[in-house]
């Protein structure tokens, strides 16, 4: 089975622009979570979606938004980019998003966003 896939791999934008990142979960997984990892730090939770509904949101401004599609893939949008948004954006999928011992989150390779 293919793992979690993300696109694009790398992206360079300038301040004020908008960006859309994409994630396809593992087949059979219905929950997708997004994380931001700034260089040298651990990932920070942004959103979780399950069955197209937002289930959780981290401490990020409203410039960050996301959605999940009927095929369970997901997009993360960031508006009005700031230099501080430069980071690795990771997507993780799990079967149900409940955190049960049988419901581990598996991470994709990430999208490296650079804001100039």
């Amino acid at each position: 089975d293919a793992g979690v896939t993300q696109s694009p791999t790398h992206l360079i934008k300038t301040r004020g622009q908008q960006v859309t990142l994409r994630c396809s979960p593992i087949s059979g997984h219905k929950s997708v979570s997004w994380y931001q990892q700034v260089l040298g730090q651990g990932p920070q939770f942004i959103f979780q979606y399950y069955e197209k509904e937002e289930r959780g949101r981290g401490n990020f401004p409203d410039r960050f938004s996301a959605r999940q599609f009927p095929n369970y893939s997901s997009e993360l949008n960031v508006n009005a980019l700031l230099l501080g948004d430069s980071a690795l954006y990771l997507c993780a999928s799990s079967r149900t998003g409940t955190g049960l011992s049988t419901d581990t989150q598996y991470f994709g390779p990430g999208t490296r966003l650079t804001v100039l």
Partner: protein
Amino acid sequence: EDKVVQSPLSLVVHEGDTVTLNCSYEVTNFRSLLWYKQEKKAPTFLFMLTSSGIEKKSGRLSSILDKKELFSILNITATQTGDSAVYLCAVDENPGNMLTFGGGTRLMVKP
């Protein structure tokens, strides 16, 4: 505010050494503690711990959780150069799958 703290920040050892990585946490609604290995980009899952005092093992890696003292350790025995990576500890809170990560421990294993 919920917090996960890992120590040491970085570690350099030689092949064959044994290492112990530490993770302490303060969260409101603990569900589980997870360990991931991050080599280049995607963190790869190692262990999920939910019960105190029960060791999880996978080859040369093992981990244990102490829910009373709010910490976990990850042990790696007979280290190899392929163990070089950042090791991330994360805590999951109810209702689940919204992980709070520590800052990671960078392990370098020299030949």
